[in-house]
C-alpha cells in the first residue's frame, strides 16, 4: 500500500460518520434500483417460464355456445398454430367454514389427453377424474390457501340448479389466472372468488352443453398477424354469440402482470436518480470541505513532486470508498426488500415458482452510476484543488466576506437577532449549497407524501364504491337472464328488505374509430341501492333514452354528453344502434355504461328480463338469508359487499403498509444524512467562530443554536416546498397509473402533510442534536491562537 493510500485510510477513519451518511443515502437509491430491477427480472423469468412450459395462449374469446365441430374451422384460420376450446361457467359455492356463499369459475378440462393450451401446474394432488362416484374438482391455489383446503377435502357447488358435493383432487395453477380476481375487480378476493377445473363431460352435461364450448384459446404461428386472426375468429364466432376475441395485451391476468412490471420500470429509474442526486451533492459537500482543510497538504504534495493526476486520483479514491460502502449496503438492502416484496406478490400473483432473482447486471450498473454520481460530486472540488499553485495553497484561505442578507436590505433587519442574521447571511453567501440542502430535505418530505396519498386515495375509493355507489348488502345473479317477475323470488328470500333488479348485456360501444367492449348495465331509473354517481358525488337519474358512461370511457371515446355512440349488442341477435350520451358517471375501476332497465330491454327487443338483483338484507336475519341463498338453485353467484370491501381493504393495507415503511426509512435516512453532514461541515468550517463564542461566554446550547440556526431556517423552507413537491409527485404517479382498469383519485389530507412534516422535522432535529454533540470536543484554547 502506498503511503498516500495509507493517508486515505486514516482520513476516511476520521470522516467515517460523514462518509457513512453519504453511503446510506446512496444505498437508498441503489437498494431501490437493485430491488426493482431484480423484481422485474424475477417476474419476467417466472412469467416467461410459466407461459412457455404451460403453453399460455395468445388469443382468447368467450361466446354463448358453439358446437365443437367449429374447432376445425378455427384451426384452419391462417396464422393459427393451436386451438383449445372449453367451457367456463360461474357458479355459487358452499365452502366449509365460510358462512357466506362464494363464487367459483369452473373451467372444463379436455376429455382426452392433456390440454394443448393453458395447461395446469399442480402444486399438489392430480387432475380430477371423470366418471367417479363422487365428482372431482381441481382448485386454484389462491382460493385453497385462503380457505386452508387440501386435496381430499370436499366442497359443494350449485351446478345449474343442483347442489353437488365435490372432492378436491388437487391444487392447481393456470397461466390464465396468475392474477386471480373476479372480472372487473381491481384486486383479488381469494376468500369469495376461486377458479376450479373439472372434466369436460361432467361440466358440459350439468349445463346441457355437451358437444359445445363457450371459451376459446389459441396460439399464433410464427409471423402471423394477431389482428387478422382476431378478426377471423370474430367472424366465425359471431353467429354463436361471440363476445369478441382479444390478445394477450387485453387478457386481465396478463395485463396486471405487465402493469406491475411497467410500474417497477418507472421506479427503477426515477427513485435512484433522486437519491443518487442527493448523494452526489453530499459527496461534493464533504469532499469540498475535506479538500479545503487539506489545502496545505495538497500544496505540500505538489511541491514535493506529486502530479495533478496523482493528487486528483487520491481524492477520487476517497469518494470511491464511499461508493463501495454504498453499493454493499444498497445491494444488501435491495435484496432484503426484494425478498419481502416477492412475498407480497404472492397476494396478487400466483406462479409455480416466483423467487427473488438478483439481477447481477444491475450490480455493475449500480457501481457505475453511483461512482458517476460520486465523481460528479467530487470533480469540481478536486479540479479546484489541483489547479491551485503550491505557493498559494500554502497560505491560509482569504477570510470570508459577507453582506447584509436580502431580507435585511428590505428593511426587516431590526427584527432580527445577531444569531438569526448570522444564519441568514451564511445561507446567502452559499446560495447553491443552501438551495441543494433545502431541495434534498424537500425531497425527503415529498417522498413521504406519495404512499399516504395512495392510502387516502384508496380509502376514498372504498368509501365511494361501497358507501355511495353500491349500497346493497349483496348482489345475486341468475345463471341466465330471467323474466322480470323473478325479482319476486329475490324479494321473498328471508330478511330481504329491498330488491332492485338489474340487467346486463355485452356490447361494443363505438365512437369514430375507437371501440370498447363492456357490459352495459340496466338499472332502475333512480335506484336506492346501486346508484350511478357523477363527478360531484350527485346521483344521476337514468333517462328513458340515452346512455350514461364512465368519465374515463368518454375520454377514451372522445365523446361528451349530447354526442352519440354506436352500441352493438354482442349477445343474442346482433343489433347496432345509435344512442345519445346522457351523462358521465364517476368510477375508479374499469369502464362502465348504464341505461335505464326498461330502455335497455327495449333496445334488446327481448321483453322485460333481468340478470339478478341488488338486495338490502336485514342484519338480524343474515344467517337465515345465507342458508337460503346457498340453496337457491338458479343463482349463479352471490356477491357480499362487506366481504369484498374487507378483502380489498386488507390487501391494499398490506401492500401500502410495506411501501409506507420503505419510504419512511428512505426519507429518514435522507433527512438525517443531509442535516448531519451539513451540521458537521458547518462545525468544521466555523470551528473557530464557534469556539470564540464559547470563550466569550456562550453556553454549549447557545452555540449549538448558532450552529444549527442555518439548518433550521433551511428546514423551515424545505418543509412546505416538500409538501408542494410531494403533492406533485403523488399527482404525477397517480396520473401515470390512471388506466382503463384502475384509477385512483388524488386525495391529499392534512394528516398526510402533518405526518411528512413530523418525520422530516424529527429526523432533522435528532440529526442536528447528534451532530451538535461534537461541540463538546471543540478546542476553546485553540481559538485564542493566531491563524498562522
Amino acid at each position, binding site marked *: 500500500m502506498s503511503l498516500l493510500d495509507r493517508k486515505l485510510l486514516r482520513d476516511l477513519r476520521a470522516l467515517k460518520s460523514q462518509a457513512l451518511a453519504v453511503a446510506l443515502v446512496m444505498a437508498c437509491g441503489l437498494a431501490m434500483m437493485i430491488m426493482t430491477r431484480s423484481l422485474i427480472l424475477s417476474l419476467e423469468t417466472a412469467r416467461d417460464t410459466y407461459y412457455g412450459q404451460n403453453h399460455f395462449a395468445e388469443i382468447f374469446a368467450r361466446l354463448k355456445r358453439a358446437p365443437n365441430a367449429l374447432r376445425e374451422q378455427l384451426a384452419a384460420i391462417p396464422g393459427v398454430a393451436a386451438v383449445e376450446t372449453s367451457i367456463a361457467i360461474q357458479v355459487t359455492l358452499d365452502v366449509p367454514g365460510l358462512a357466506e356463499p362464494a363464487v367459483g369459475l369452473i373451467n372444463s378440462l379436455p376429455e382426452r389427453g392433456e390440454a394443448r393450451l393453458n395447461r395446469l401446474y399442480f402444486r399438489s394432488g392430480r387432475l380430477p377424474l371423470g366418471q367417479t362416484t363422487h365428482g372431482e374438482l381441481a382448485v386454484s391455489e389462491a382460493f385453497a390457501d385462503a380457505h386452508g383446503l387440501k386435496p381430499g377435502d370436499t366442497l359443494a357447488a350449485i351446478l345449474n340448479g343442483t347442489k353437488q358435493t365435490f372432492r378436491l383432487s388437487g391444487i392447481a395453477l393456470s397461466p390464465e389466472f396468475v392474477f386471480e380476481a373476479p372480472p372487473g375487480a381491481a384486486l383479488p378476493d381469494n376468500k369469495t372468488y376461486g377458479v376450479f377445473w373439472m372434466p369436460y363431460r361432467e361440466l358440459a352435461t350439468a349445463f346441457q352443453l355437451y358437444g359445445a364450448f363457450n371459451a376459446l384459446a389459441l396460439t399464433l404461428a410464427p409471423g402471423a398477424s394477431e389482428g387478422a386472426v382476431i378478426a377471423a375468429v370474430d367472424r366465425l364466432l359471431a353467429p354463436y354469440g361471440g363476445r369478441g376475441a382479444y390478445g394477450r395485451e387485453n387478457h386481465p391476468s396478463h395485463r396486471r402482470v405487465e402493469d406491475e412490471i411497467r410500474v417497477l420500470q418507472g421506479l427503477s429509474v426515477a427513485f435512484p436518480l433522486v437519491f443518487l442526486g442527493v448523494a452526489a451533492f453530499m459527496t461534493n459537500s464533504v469532499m469540498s470541505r475535506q479538500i479545503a482543510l487539506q489545502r496545505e497538504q495538497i500544496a505540500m504534495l505538489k511541491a514535493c513532486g506529486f502530479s495533478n493526476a496523482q493528487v486528483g486520483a487520491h481524492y477520487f479514491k476517497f469518494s470511491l470508498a464511499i461508493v463501495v460502502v454504498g453499493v454493499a449496503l444498497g445491494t444488501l438492502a435491495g435484496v432484503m426488500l426484494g425478498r419481502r416484496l416477492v412475498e407480497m406478490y404472492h397476494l396478487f400473483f400466483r406462479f409455480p415458482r416466483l423467487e427473488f432473482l438478483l439481477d447481477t447486471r444491475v450490480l455493475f450498473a449500480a457501481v457505475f452510476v453511483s461512482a458517476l454520481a460520486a465523481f460528479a460530486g467530487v470533480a469540481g472540488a478536486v479540479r479546484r484543488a489541483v489547479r491551485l499553485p503550491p505557493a498559494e495553497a500554502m497560505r491560509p484561505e482569504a477570510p*470570508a466576506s459577507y453582506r447584509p442578507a436580502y431580507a435585511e436590505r428590505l428593511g426587516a433587519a431590526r427584527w432580527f437577532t445577531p*444569531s438569526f*442574521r448570522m444564519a441568514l447571511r451564511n445561507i446567502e453567501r452559499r446560495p447553491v449549497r443552501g438551495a441543494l440542502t433545502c431541495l434534498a430535505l424537500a425531497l425527503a418530505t415529498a417522498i413521504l407524501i406519495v404512499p399516504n396519498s395512495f392510502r387516502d386515495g384508496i380509502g376514498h375509493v372504498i368509501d365511494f364504491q361501497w358507501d355511495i355507489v353500491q349500497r346493497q348488502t349483496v348482489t345475486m345473479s341468475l345463471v341466465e337472464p330471467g323474466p322480470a317477475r323473478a325479482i319476486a323470488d329475490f324479494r321473498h328470500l328471508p330478511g330481504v328488505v329491498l330488491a332492485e333488479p338489474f340487467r346486463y348485456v355485452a356490447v361494443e360501444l363505438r365512437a369514430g374509430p375507437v371501440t370498447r367492449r363492456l357490459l352495459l348495465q340496466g338499472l332502475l331509473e333512480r335506484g336506492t341501492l346501486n346508484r350511478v354517481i357523477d363527478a360531484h358525488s350527485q346521483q344521476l337519474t337514468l333517462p328513458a333514452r340515452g346512455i350514461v358512461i364512465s368519465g374515463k370511457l368518454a375520454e377514451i371515446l372522445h365523446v361528451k354528453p349530447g354526442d352519440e355512440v354506436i352500441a352493438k349488442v354482442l349477445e343474442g341477435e346482433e343489433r347496432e344502434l345509435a344512442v345519445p350520451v346522457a351523462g358521465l358517471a364517476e368510477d375508479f375501476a374499469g369502464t362502465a355504461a348504464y341505461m335505464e332497465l326498461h330502455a335497455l330491454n327495449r333496445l334488446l327487443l327481448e321483453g322485460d328480463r333481468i340478470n339478478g338483483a341488488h338486495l338490502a338484507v336485514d342484519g338480524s336475519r343474515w344467517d337465515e338469508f345465507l342458508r337460503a341463498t346457498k340453496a337457491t338453485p338458479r343463482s349463479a353467484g352471490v356477491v357480499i359487499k362487506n366481504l369484498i370491501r374487507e378483502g380489498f381493504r386488507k390487501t391494499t393495507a398490506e401492500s401500502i403498509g410495506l411501501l409506507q415503511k420503505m419510504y419512511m426509512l428512505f426519507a429518514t435516512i435522507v433527512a438525517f444524512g443531509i442535516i448531519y453532514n451539513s451540521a458537521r461541515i458547518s462545525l468544521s468550517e466555523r470551528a473557530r467562530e464557534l469556539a470564540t463564542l464559547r470563550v466569550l461566554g456562550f453556553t454549549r446550547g447557545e452555540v449549538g443554536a448558532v450552529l444549527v440556526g442555518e439548518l433550521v431556517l433551511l428546514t423551515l423552507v424545505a418543509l412546505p416546498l416538500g409538501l408542494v413537491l410531494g403533492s406533485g409527485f403523488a399527482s404525477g404517479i397517480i396520473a401515470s397509473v390512471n388506466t382503463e382498469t384502475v384509477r385512483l383519485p388524488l386525495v391529499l389530507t392534512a394528516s398526510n402533510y402533518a405526518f411528512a412534516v413530523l418525520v422530516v422535522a424529527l429526523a432533522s432535529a435528532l440529526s442536528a442534536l447528534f451532530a451538535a454533540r461534537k461541540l463538546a470536543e471543540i478546542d*476553546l484554547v485553540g481559538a485564542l491562537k*493566531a491563524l498562522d
Partner: protein
Amino acid sequence: MPPVEPSSLVLPAVEREPVFQVRDLARIYGEGTAAVTALRGVDLDLFPGELIVLLGASGSGKSTLLNQLGGLDSPTRGTLLYRGWNLGAADEADLTRFRRDAVGFVFQAYNLIPSLTARENVALITEICRDPMAPEEALTLVGLGERMDHFPAQLSGGEQQRVAIARAIAKRPAVLLCDEPTGALDVRTGITVLEAIERSNRELGTLAVIITHNAILADMADRVFTLSDGRIVNERTNARRGSVSELAW
C-alpha cells in the same frame, strides 16, 4: 458560583481586595513520560483597576496562565480564587457563566464573527450579559463610532482588533484578558489598540491583563511579571504608569 457583581467593579485602584488570588498554581498536560509541565507553582494577587503585563518567551507559560485566569482551563494543582470563589474547582457550566459575566477576551487574531457587522459583533455579546453598555457606546469608546456597520472583511486589522476590544468591554467585565493584542499589527495600529485597552482600564476600572513578548509594553503597566519555564521569575512595580504614546517604540 457566587454572584459576579459588575457594579462592584467601579472601585478605586487602591482597593486591596484582590480580584484573583493565585497560590502554587500548576498545570501539567498529559501523563507519565508524556507529561508536559506548563505552569509549576505560580503565586500572584491581581487587584481591581490594575493594568498587568505578563512577559515571556514562547512556551514560558504565560498563555497557560491567561487560560487559567479566563476560566478556559482548570489547574492540576494549587489554588485559583476569583474574589474568594474557587475558580479552579468550578465545573463547565460555572466556567461558562464566569466567562460570560466577568471576563472580556481580546485575541491576537481578533476572532470576530465574519458574518456580523462591527455593531452586531458587539451586540451578540451584550444580548447575553446582565448590565452591558450599548454596542454603539463601546464602539465609540474604542474610536470606531463611524464604522459600526462594516463587516470584518471591510475593516483593517487595527479596526478589527478595536471591535474585539469593544466587544470585550461592552459587558463591563471585571477582567479584560488580552492575548498578544498587537501581535498581528504594525506599530501605529498597535498604539491605537493599546490606547483603547488603557482607556477602558482607566475609565471602567477593569483589571486588564496583557500577555506579550514585546517588553516595550511593560512601561504602560502598573505591574509587570516575567515568566520563564512555567514560573514567575521577576515581578516589577512601575512607580508611574507610562501612557501608550510615551512608550519607546
